[in-house]
């Protein structure tokens, strides 16, 4: 289990941790174990199963120690430089499968042989029946897996990091190999081979796995493994004023948070600016209460704070405490105080249930695995709960990644929101980006007329600009026959895959231009 869980993390900086990556890793490990069981059964019939066990453990330990280096090297070889998210669909699937097969399969296969070998050795040594020996071994190994699951996720990866986690697992296997060798009374037999394997194992400490390369003129400020994901803070110095990005897992050309030195609007193309859209038609509240679901490193807080007319007060919800920590270190995210309350380690949906008061605006910017909206945060039931947390006339604003208005993700999430709000919702295409802003309102009119956004009625630092052009905004009405996402059935991962796969073909679909 240590290897399996760490394997996904190892692939994360290159291929992400989307469903397809998890599927590939689990499939390869299961395949390897199945073959290992079969092979182990054959090997167990040899004269000295304990001796064979020591060799198998030694080989697996050595192979696991090299996993971070081999995995990163192979991933680097398979992935071209600087690919965009929508270009990555085919590569994520095949690439993660290729790396999983060529790196995780050999050690997992060797580990698969362990169980039958131990069963045989135990049965012979203690004169147990096959069932009794097998039951004992499975009991211990399953308990070990249980420890591996919790230990890896909650302690090993966040504390030791990937390389040392693998190395620790390999060291335990080597120690087990030595024990098996002692039990088998091998003495000096095969000593040279064992020594060579040990040298190869020790050599793994001398190499460092590669990391995905950075764009030119970008520097990595910090890298961290959290309980949830691989994080890195990157500063882009190619423009005049530096921009910092928080990247999660593979990154590609996407990011979770962005920072610039000055408070206020980010350069054109950043969807965070569009969370200010309600300000164009809203009179200032006193204060303007905002619930941010998916706080990240606090970009939304910094952008909305620049609209001083609103006097915003924030409750920011972020699942990963390490993200908030990095936000405070690198993204000028303010400490908790009268203007900001952060809830970390809390799922957005749970936070929505426990949040008190009617909010003037709910910002939804939650993504898992970089590109996937978590399934429980885009359903009709979720949007109903969000609506219930809005003040009268309050706004729900959600960031959706997509490529067109009829993109599978964009259209289904918008339809679900419209169903929940029992009224029309707006989709605004964010200029110069592949994002859409979903806008819904509780008991209030949407700023929409004759196929476009209404002019602003309030002064705002955000100009509506091209957002009012025909074809850049659509109103989605609730429809009984629309496909909506529910807690019972939410195939958002499949829709996300469809969205990316179709993206290139969809780029040049003619839209209304006149």
């Amino acid at each position, binding site marked *: 289990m240590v290897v399996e869980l760490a394997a996904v993390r190892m692939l994360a900086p290159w291929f992400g941790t989307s469903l397809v990556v998890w599927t590939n890793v689990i499939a390869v490990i299961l*395949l390897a174990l199945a*073959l290992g069981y*079969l*092979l182990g*059964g*054959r*090997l*167990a*019939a*040899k*004269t000295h199963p304990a001796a064979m066990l020591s060799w198998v453990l030694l080989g697996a330990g050595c192979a696991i120690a090299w996993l971070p280096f081999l995995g990163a090297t192979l991933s680097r*070889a*398979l*992935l*071209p430089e600087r*690919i*965009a998210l929508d*270009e990555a669909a*085919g*590569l994520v699937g*095949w*690439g993660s*499968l*290729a790396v999983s*097969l*060529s790196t995780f*399969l050999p050690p997992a296969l060797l580990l698969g042989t362990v169980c039958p070998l131990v069963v*045989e050795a135990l*049965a*012979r040594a203690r*004169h*147990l*029946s*096959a*069932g009794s020996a097998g039951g004992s071994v499975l009991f211990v190994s399953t308990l070990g897996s249980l420890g591996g699951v919790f230990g890896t996720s909650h302690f090993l990866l966040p504390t030791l990091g990937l390389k040392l986690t693998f190395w620790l697992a390999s060291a335990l296997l080597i120690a087990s190999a030595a024990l098996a060798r002692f039990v088998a009374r091998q003495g000096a037999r095969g000593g040279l081979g064992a020594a060579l394997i040990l040298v190869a194992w020790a050599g793994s400490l001398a190499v460092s796995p590669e990391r995905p390369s950075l764009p030119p003129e970008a520097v990595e400020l910090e890298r961290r493994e959290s309980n949830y994901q691989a994080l890195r803070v990157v500063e882009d110095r190619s423009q005049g004023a530096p921009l910092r990005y928080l990247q999660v897992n593979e990154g590609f050309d996407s990011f979770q948070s962005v920072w610039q030195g000055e408070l206020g609007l980010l350069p*054109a*193309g950043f969807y965070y600016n569009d969370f200010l859209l309600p300000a164009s038609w809203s009179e200032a509240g006193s204060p303007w209460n905002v619930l941010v679901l998916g706080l990240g490193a606090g970009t939304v807080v910094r952008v909305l704070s620049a609209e001083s007319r609103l006097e915003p007060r924030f409750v920011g919800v972020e699942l990963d405490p390490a993200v908030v920590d990095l936000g405070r270190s690198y993204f000028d995210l303010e400490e908790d105080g009268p203007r900001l309350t952060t809830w970390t380690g809390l799922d957005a949906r749970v936070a929505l249930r426990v949040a008190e008061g009617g909010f003037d605006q709910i910002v939804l910017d939650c993504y898992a695995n970089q590109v996937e909206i978590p399934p429980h945060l885009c359903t009709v039931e979720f949007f109903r709960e969000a609506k219930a947390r809005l003040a009268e006339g309050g706004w729900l604003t959600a960031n959706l990644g997509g490529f*067109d208005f009829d993109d599978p993700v964009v259209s289904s999430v918008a339809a679900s929101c419209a169903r929940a709000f029992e009224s029309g919702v707006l989709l605004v*295409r*964010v*200029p*110069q*980006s592949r994002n859409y802003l979903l806008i819904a309102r509780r008991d209030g009119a949407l700023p929409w007329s004759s196929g*476009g956004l209404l002019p602003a009625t309030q002064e705002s630092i955000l*100009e509506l*600009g*091209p957002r*009012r*052009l*025909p*074809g*850049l905004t659509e109103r989605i009405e609730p429809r009984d026959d629309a496909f909506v996402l529910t807690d019972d059935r939410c195939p958002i991962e499949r829709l996300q895959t469809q969205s990316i796969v179709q993206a*290139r073909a969809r*780029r*040049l*679909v*003619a*839209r209304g*231009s*006149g």
Partner: protein
Amino acid sequence: MASYPSQAELTEVRALLDASDYCEAWRLAGTLKGAREKDLARSEILYRGGDPAGAFSAARAGLETAPGDLDLLFWATGSSIWLRDAERAQAYSRELRARVEDARPRLSPGESEAWTRTVEDFSNRSQELAQHDRALDLAVTRARTVSLGFGAGLFLILVWVARSSHGRSSNPVS
């Protein structure tokens, strides 16, 4: 953003775009005489408004009524590059180069030089896109080959293991 060499038309539309008044620019575009002028203006408005797909659609619509028009080809190529569509970018870039050569006798030296620079820029960027696409295709093929190779190897191992004799415990207990 692509640099636009022609300064002949659309002055008012551009002034409105510079003032970020996209709606008025759009309205004005609808009043221009001729389908070519309307599509040209709309393409520029959508391009500058951050909607390359819309800009491409408008340019393509204009090219149906004014085939080979340099300005429309400019926006069609620029939008294709923004959309990272190597195939279309190369096709429009090639057509633009050919049309510029045809039109060169009618162009002033300044215009001629500006178009030459633009064509070269578009051509280089289109080629970069094509190279990038080829690298992507190659990477997918490589990953697929490695995966299938391992799959075949595993199948052989399975056959080998299955064909080897079943072992019998030296200590049968049941």
